[in-house]
């Protein structure tokens, strides 16, 4: 039994590594085609994403710092997938979590840790409220969650932008909202880096989610609903209620991403124009969750992987002069290759190695 588990993990890791390599090769070819030195670019990617942690903590801590929100959003998405939902609303949960902190900062106008408590409660409350709209439309009206959550994402987007422009703009820099007061911020783990204690919170969230999903009755029922809704219903589980809980669970995790991002990342501690510092975190969570095969623990290395890519991008820009846009393009190619779980198995089959059949469930 144990041997099988270990082999399973090895095969899955192997798949991700193979896909990464394929993506990097294709990306490298594209860079070469546009006249950039691909090897130099990748060298600087690695240097900036990892560096030498013994002499300089900055690269590795940046990677972990950029991985932090993705752990939350990856978890949020994993929880939905496990309960049979394709919940794109994690994106709005992130916006609203951050919005709660901005509202609390603006309303209280005081530099106290109380802002953090009230702000996160407001943020999580807003996320949960939006998720409840999607959940009840799903349960009571049978509206598919993809449609509701996409609409709610845009409604949240414009609401946040309304607050940024009309309610609490930064008086010195109207492109941002007012900032979270210093004593309400999550402390940095290492001075001079971007890594804050929110990373620890993210790890704890991941462990808690794992525990809830695999060691509680609620988690068991949630997963049962996701695997086979009808069977779960016949077994006497209250599947509608479970669906609602799954939405709310997701919203809390997504909301935490927003709260931690705005209270834990220097230098802004505010929402910037076009919600640019939060946009896409929820969507990246989808990729993270799927790379981590929707497992709460595997979401951590998956987030660090994407976090490393996002950090290394800066190095490629500065040292190899690869424009940011081209780096994004290469990143896209890598993610597309990550979609191929069969890559390694095809290779194995080619080499004549026997393998166990497995299915990848995406929705």
């Amino acid at each position: 039994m144990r041997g099988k588990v270990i082999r399973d993990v090895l095969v899955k890791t192997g798949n991700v590594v193979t896909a990464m390599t394929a993506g990097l090769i294709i990306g490298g070819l594209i860079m070469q085609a546009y006249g950039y030195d691909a090897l130099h670019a990748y060298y600087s990617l690695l240097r900036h994403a990892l560096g030498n942690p013994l002499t300089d903590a900055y690269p590795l801590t940046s990677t972990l710092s950029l991985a932090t929100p993705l752990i939350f959003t990856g978890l949020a998405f994993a929880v939905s997938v496990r309960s049979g939902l394709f919940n794109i609303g994690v994106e709005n949960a992130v916006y609203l979590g951050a919005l709660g902190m901005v509202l609390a900062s603006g309303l209280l106008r005081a530099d106290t840790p109380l802002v953090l408590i009230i702000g996160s409660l407001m943020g999580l409350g807003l996320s949960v409220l939006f998720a409840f709209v999607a959940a009840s439309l799903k349960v009571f009206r049978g509206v598919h969650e993809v449609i509701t959550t996409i609409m709610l994402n845009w409604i949240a987007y414009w609401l946040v932008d309304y607050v940024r422009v009309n309610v609490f703009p930064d008086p010195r820099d109207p492109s941002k909202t007012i900032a979270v007061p210093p004593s309400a911020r999550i402390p940095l783990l290492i001075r001079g880096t971007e890594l804050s204690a929110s990373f620890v919170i993210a790890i704890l969230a991941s462990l808690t989610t794992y525990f809830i999903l695999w060691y509680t009755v609620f988690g068991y029922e949630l997963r049962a609903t996701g695997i086979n809704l009808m069977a779960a219903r016949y077994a006497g589980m209250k599947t509608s209620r479970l669906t609602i809980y799954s939405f709310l669970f997701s919203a809390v995790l997504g909301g935490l991403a927003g709260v931690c991002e705005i209270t834990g990342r220097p230098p802004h501690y505010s929402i910037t124009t076009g919600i640019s510092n939060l946009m896409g975190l929820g969507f990246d969570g989808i990729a993270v969750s799927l790379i981590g095969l929707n497992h709460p623990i595997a979401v951590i290395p998956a987030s660090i992987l994407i976090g490393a890519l996002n950090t290394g991008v800066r190095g490629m820009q500065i040292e190899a002069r690869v424009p940011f846009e081209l780096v994004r393009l290469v990143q896209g190619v890598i993610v597309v290759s990550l979609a191929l779980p069969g890559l390694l198995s095809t290779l194995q089959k080619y080499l004549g190695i026997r393998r166990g059949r497995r299915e990848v469930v995406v929705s």
Partner: protein
Amino acid sequence: MSYVIGTIINLLVSTSYAMTPLTLTAVGEITSERAGVVNIGLEGMISVSALVSVAVATQTLNPWLGLLAGVGVGALIGLIHGLISAYGKGAQIISGVGINIFALGFVPYMIIALWGVAGYKQVPEAGRIPRVAGLVSPVFILCVLVAIATHYVLFRTSLGLKIRALGEEPQAADTLGIHVERLQLIAAVYGGALAGLAGAFMSLDWLGTITKEIAAGRGFISLALVVFSNWKPSLALLGGALFGSSWALTEWLKVLPGVKGVVPVTIINTLPYVVTLGAVAGVIGRARPPRKSGVPYLRE
């Protein structure tokens, strides 16, 4: 009175423009999902095609060649996604996310690389698609025809039956001798081509310019439209009109005296989404997706 009629005609025309990219993309995605291939990279495909079509149209000063190039590029991305999904048995969602990220880099990079400007490029007058009777876009007419034709093929022909079988029970289809992978690939390419047409329409016809944010969420809204229309192309046409008209209304409201400057633009911007939510909550019942859509088909 003439003011009222003028306003109504204006709103109808802007609706026809707003609904065209949504409907085209949704009809393509419906076909693809009916065959079992989900593509959430539509957003990226729209913007990449919009860019390539502008590049071709400014080069040749022929809008039709530009339009064709847009369709071709969309089909090409659809082909890649289809190969990954059908033959590679890949995770379709990850591939779609990758396409979106790729576009986020590709489009702004190419705008700089091709024209040396950051942000946006205007399409020259000769590269724009002429309008029928000075009002309606030929692509809108094409869009209506495509939606009806696709509906007919999907529900009234044996090809359509085969495609729908792939999304419901690929194993049964396989047993009957249908080439599962090949047909899935064709459906994915068709979906990509229509998303490409939508992108080309936006840059060459409707907006007459290419920006890096040209898709502005329309790829995702089309996904919503797919669900709204219960995976039926004819309903996608109606749903597209509903979504499109709420957009047209929003733009009209923004400049309406008494509203302009009083209600914040950001709040008005939420309107199309609120209307859509309300419409789905009130109008439709339980939508049923193709059973095996998004699940890679693996033989025993």
